[in-house]
């Protein structure tokens, strides 16, 4: 049999790592340092604490934890950090990028090929960056008869809505961008926006294939929203709250999937449909309607829609974790020592490095984030898996599934929840 992939060699792997490190250092020395020096020539150096802030002093302060950690701490306590970096957009975008890479590699392994391989030298890890650069550098073409303002607005709105969805997800105790009491209702409201944006973009393109794709997306999303909402009713009845953080807190003993497996399964299927993943990727069925409602998007507009799609994927997987798999709850695996080092200092021989505390980075928070990410990655894996196994289904089969089977199962799930409530096994707040 012919050779499909170059063979993996550990020495080559190490060599490629060293190679990458060499080029990063090389570019830093050749480009980064001269740039810094040039900037230093131009600007006036400030006086801080009676000392002239020379570059040497700046570097000295940079490696001095007593000066840098409070700054980092202050930054982390801001709302900006929460929105842009940790539980918000940056964290979600990182996971989304990881999802795209994992999807391509996993699908490749299932299909007896290697997937991205050369870009970045280590298993094609930089392929996504290359694709992003390509999308940014491409020309944006807008159809002549398109409704231009709406057509421009659609990708931006799509990403914004997906980001709004991400902001409602609690990642670790206390780490959530928008901790509102009607969190689950907020999620339903955000999900309700997606069909509107889809049909707006499809209609504004003024082209046949996007129009058909948009109509299909509308059918699909609207008919699957009802089972989606109904399948979560059981959880709401058992917890008695709509606040997502409180729903997670109620699962400290058992995740709700133990008691409501039917609801979890229905929610997973509707999630696949809302995300337009195979087997429910009818709005983007390429052999029938080219790329569906994405047909006329080009360049970074398409890139934005893809970003939004994968942010949405992360948010849905995270919602599944929050509602059914117990969110951040899990055995304590993070050892306590990093926290002690940070707060109480460390003694190394005669020197004691005293570092001011960072109460935000608690052991619980690190542990919660670890379990949350682990569970989310597992759910994302199961979302990606059908793509290698199933063909696409048809519109009538989809609607039949949504309106007859899934809604019926939702009611079964609600009756199970009611039974558990009245039998006194479970009540608001978890195990009675």
């Amino acid at each position, binding site marked *: *049999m012919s050779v499909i992939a170059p063979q993996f060699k550990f020495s080559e792997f190490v060599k490629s790592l060293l190679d990458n490190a060499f080029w990063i250092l090389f570019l830093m020395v050749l480009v980064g340092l001269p740039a810094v020096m040039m900037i230093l020539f131009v600007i006036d150096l400030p006086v801080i604490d009676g000392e002239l802030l020379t570059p040497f002093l700046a570097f000295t302060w940079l490696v001095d934890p007593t000066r840098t950690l409070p700054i980092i701490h202050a930054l982390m306590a801001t709302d900006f950090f929460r929105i842009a970096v940790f539980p918000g957009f940056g964290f979600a975008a990182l996971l989304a990028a990881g999802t795209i890479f994992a999807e391509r590699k996993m699908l490749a392994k299932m*299909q*007896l090929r290697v997937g991205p391989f050369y870009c970045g030298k280590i298993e094609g890890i930089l392929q996504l960056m290359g694709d992003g650069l390509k999308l940014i550098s491409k020309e944006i073409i807008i159809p002549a008869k398109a409704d231009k303002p709406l057509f421009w607005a659609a990708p931006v709105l799509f990403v914004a809505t997906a980001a709004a969805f991400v902001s409602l997800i609690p990642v670790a105790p206390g780490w959530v961008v928008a901790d509102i009491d009607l969190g689950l209702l907020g999620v339903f409201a955000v999900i309700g926006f997606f069909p509107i944006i889809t049909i707006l973009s499809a209609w504004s393109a003024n082209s046949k*294939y996007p129009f058909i794709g948009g109509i299909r997306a509308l059918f699909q999303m609207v008919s699957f929203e009802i089972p989606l909402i109904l399948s979560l009713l059981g959880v709401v009845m058992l917890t008695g709250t709509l606040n997502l953080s409180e729903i997670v807190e109620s699962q400290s003993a058992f995740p709700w999937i133990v008691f409501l497996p039917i609801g979890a399964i229905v929610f997973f299927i509707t999630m696949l449909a809302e995300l337009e993943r195979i*087997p429910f990727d009818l709005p983007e069925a390429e*052999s029938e309607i*080219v790329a569906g409602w994405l047909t006329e998007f080009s360049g970074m507009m398409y890139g934005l829609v893809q970003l939004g799609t994968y942010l949405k994927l992360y948010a849905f997987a995270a919602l599944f974790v929050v509602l059914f798999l117990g969110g951040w709850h899990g055995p304590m695996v993070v050892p306590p020592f990093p926290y002690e080092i940070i707060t109480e200092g460390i003694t190394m021989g005669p020197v004691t490095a005293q570092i001011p505390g960072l109460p935000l980075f608690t052991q619980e928070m690190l542990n919660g984030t670890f379990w949350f990410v682990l569970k989310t990655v597992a759910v994302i894996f199961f979302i990606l898996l059908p*793509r290698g196994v*199933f*063909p696409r289904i048809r519109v009538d089969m989809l609607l039949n599934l949504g309106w007859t089977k899934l809604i019926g199962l939702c009611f079964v799930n609600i009756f199970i929840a009611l039974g558990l409530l009245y039998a006194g096994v479970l009540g608001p707040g978890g195990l009675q």
Partner: protein
Amino acid sequence: MTAELPPGLALQKVDERIMTLNVGPQHPGSGHMRLIVQIDGDYIVACDPDPGYVHRGEEKMAEYRNYILNIPHLERPVIHDSCNVLYPYVLGVEELLGIEVPERAKYVRVIASELNRCIYTMYWLAIYGIFLGHSTMFMWPAGDRELLIDLMEKMTGARVTHAYFVPGGVRNDLPPNFEDVCLRQVNYFEKRIKEYADIFYDNPILISRTRDTGVLSRQDAIRLGTTGSVLRASGVDFDLRKKEPYDVYDELDFKTNVLKEGDSYARSKIPWLDMLESCQIIRQALKKMPKSGSVRVKLKPNPKGKLDSVYKRVESGRGSLGCYIVSDGKPEPYRLKMSVGSFRNLIALPYLLKGEKLGNMPSVYWSLNYWPVEADR
């Protein structure tokens, strides 16, 4: 406006509910052709196939080249099935020139022809998979095809366009130790394609999607003149390898696969069953083949055909493939006409798609075992 317009030119009343889609030639689900599809909501009202985008004038080109020079360009219509495309031409020329083919060459031809049928069917199956949105079914056949392509490369020296069959036998003998390698590869190949049942043919979503769509009844299949897998999927037991055995097919033991349903699923399953049967044929031919001997009759340079016409047909990957050669005693054929299975199967498409849902269009279209380049010739 006079009322006496011919039917084709009569103005059609525009219905605002009906949307006309140009599916192709630049469309992921069309191939080198255009389907003009009129849809009402999700239902197809009318479909008008418009082939001819890759017409190359093969038949006219054949009139300017002698019988040997015609070999390489006549296999171009289906490069994945190049041995079978050339087969009727070579058989016809042999009859015109009055050549008797050596016994070993006949077996080598059967092996090459069956290998080529598998290579073509794997490619077709890959595209059928991706038309249904099943990307694994696109990658697996495309990868497993390499096994047989490597075999053909050992046999003929080329990966796709082999130009292997010549009037009087085959171009060159098999390489040493070919029988063992071929047996091993074919056994592994058979094991692999049996696994396709798990991921594709027994997949409940696939079955629910293609069962009872585009049903072609037995009477319609015969009336519309379909052939090959389309005909056999509608319950007609017609295989030229059985009905009009050429070369050594009458000495080999194999069965033709017939299904009664006549829907897309049956039409997609018949080529796969045929591939399993091809593996049996190859194994038998390897066993029965004379171990040594000539594989080619020496021809005179620029041979002239006798004043006659001849029609030969073989069972290709897409059904009956005929070649009609008229000779006027010159080194070039006076007229050469290819009757291809693809074009005959395409005729059924407008009848099958009328009233279907738009989502069924790719599966019905590609289940007809249609190869656009061959239909245009």
